[in-house]
């Protein structure tokens, strides 16, 4: 069982080494400005900078989307294992699946009618 993961570890180490080496090369070979000025390091703001947006506020929709994601992604976490064993378990598993998706469907309709899927 653990044998299966050894190739993944070898490959993963390579996959980590390549970006790191590229970054290292850019540290080693990059051209550097002869002297640093403070104005060069301010963030890009199309010309006029009002400083970094430390306390910028966001549309509530972004947070709402995150909450919706949690609800529906957990659903998928439950469905994947069931999908693997659905055929051996037969109709019992199918009705379980339908029941589960039915409850979720009620929640989905509720969310839709509440207007949570609307982007504002």
């Amino acid at each position, binding site marked *: 069982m653990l044998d*299966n*993961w050894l*190739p*993944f570890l*070898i*490959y*993963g180490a*390579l*996959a*980590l080494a*390549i*970006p*790191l080496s*590229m*970054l290292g090369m*850019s*540290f080693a*070979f*990059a*051209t550097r*400005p002869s002297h640093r000025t*403070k104005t*060069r*390091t*301010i*963030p*890009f*703001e*199309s010309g006029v900078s009002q400083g*970094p*947006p*430390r306390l*910028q506020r966001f549309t509530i*929709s*972004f947070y709402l*989307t*995150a909450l*919706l*994601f949690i609800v*529906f992604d957990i659903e*998928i976490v439950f*469905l*994947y294992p069931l*999908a*693997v*064993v*659905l*055929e*051996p378990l*037969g*109709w019992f*598993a*199918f009705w379980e*699946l*339908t029941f589960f*998706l039915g409850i979720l469907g009620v929640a*989905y309709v509720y969310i839709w009618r509440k207007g949570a*899927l*609307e*982007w504002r």
Partner: protein
Amino acid sequence: MNLNEPWWIDAIKALVIINLVLGVFAYMTWVERKVIGRMQQRYGPNRTGPFGLLQPIADLVKLIRKESFFPGSAIDVLYITAPVVSAFTALAAFSVIPFGAGWQVGGYDITGQIANVQISLILLFALGSFGIYGFIVGGWASDSKYSLLGSMRTCAQLVSYEVSLALSVLGVILMAGSLSLVDIVHSQEADWWYAVPQFIGLIVFFIAGTAETNRAPFDLPEAEQELVAGYHTEYSGMRFGLFQMAEYVNLIVLSGLCVTLFFGGWLGPWEPLGPLWFVLKVLLVLFVFIWMRTTLPRLRYDQLMSFGWKVLLPVATLNALVTAALVVAL
């Protein structure tokens, strides 16, 4: 399964495959510029080498030689690690995609994938989700208005379409009865490729996958007319290059996954070609992605979100339900 495959074969295979993936990435940028150029009736890069073939190498040298600009107000550790995280997860995700049936050379077994783990599909999605952190953290840590907006958009978009992406695959899992990509390809050997019975799943997968890799028409996170460049506005040099690499490698992984799940992976009319079939199919899918980029205009953000939640999600769920009924009934 008792395979006689010592660790050094795994190491050689990993080295070859990762370099192939990087090579495809490098020349994908060339092909993309060339194809888009031709479709817009211009030539595309043609100065470096014959047909501009050395362009990716020139780009690499340029990116390494460029000053690694660092915004003064950025949070340094996060700012530097974010592109590495993205590139690492994108590259690592390719390890579970099978590219061949496996061979026997001189008493040793060489399997047709790097890691044959039972939960390869979940591992792939997990790595994909982990890669999102790089985009969000990178945009947030660079402390610029456009980066922050871009990373928020990326976050919301990827999170919304990941639900549909994962659900669209459910039909294939139901039919194959396994989460292992190797088993999924084997189960397509006797019957139709899943592109035929899972046609709706394929369409949902393809659309959600396009959104998941930030490709046009879903490239809102880096809509250059609105956001300068999105989450990597403040990045330059090789750090920018790593983000770019992560995006293209993600696209290659997604194409590989698409081919594996819906188009029979390495299977083809003539057996001995094996991995070549896989490569050909992946290149074809990649071409479709480029084609879509030149053809389709960008969506509006509210259209994008409502399309994901109100169309793709119900369609994917219904597809899974109908597939489940058919799998049990037949």
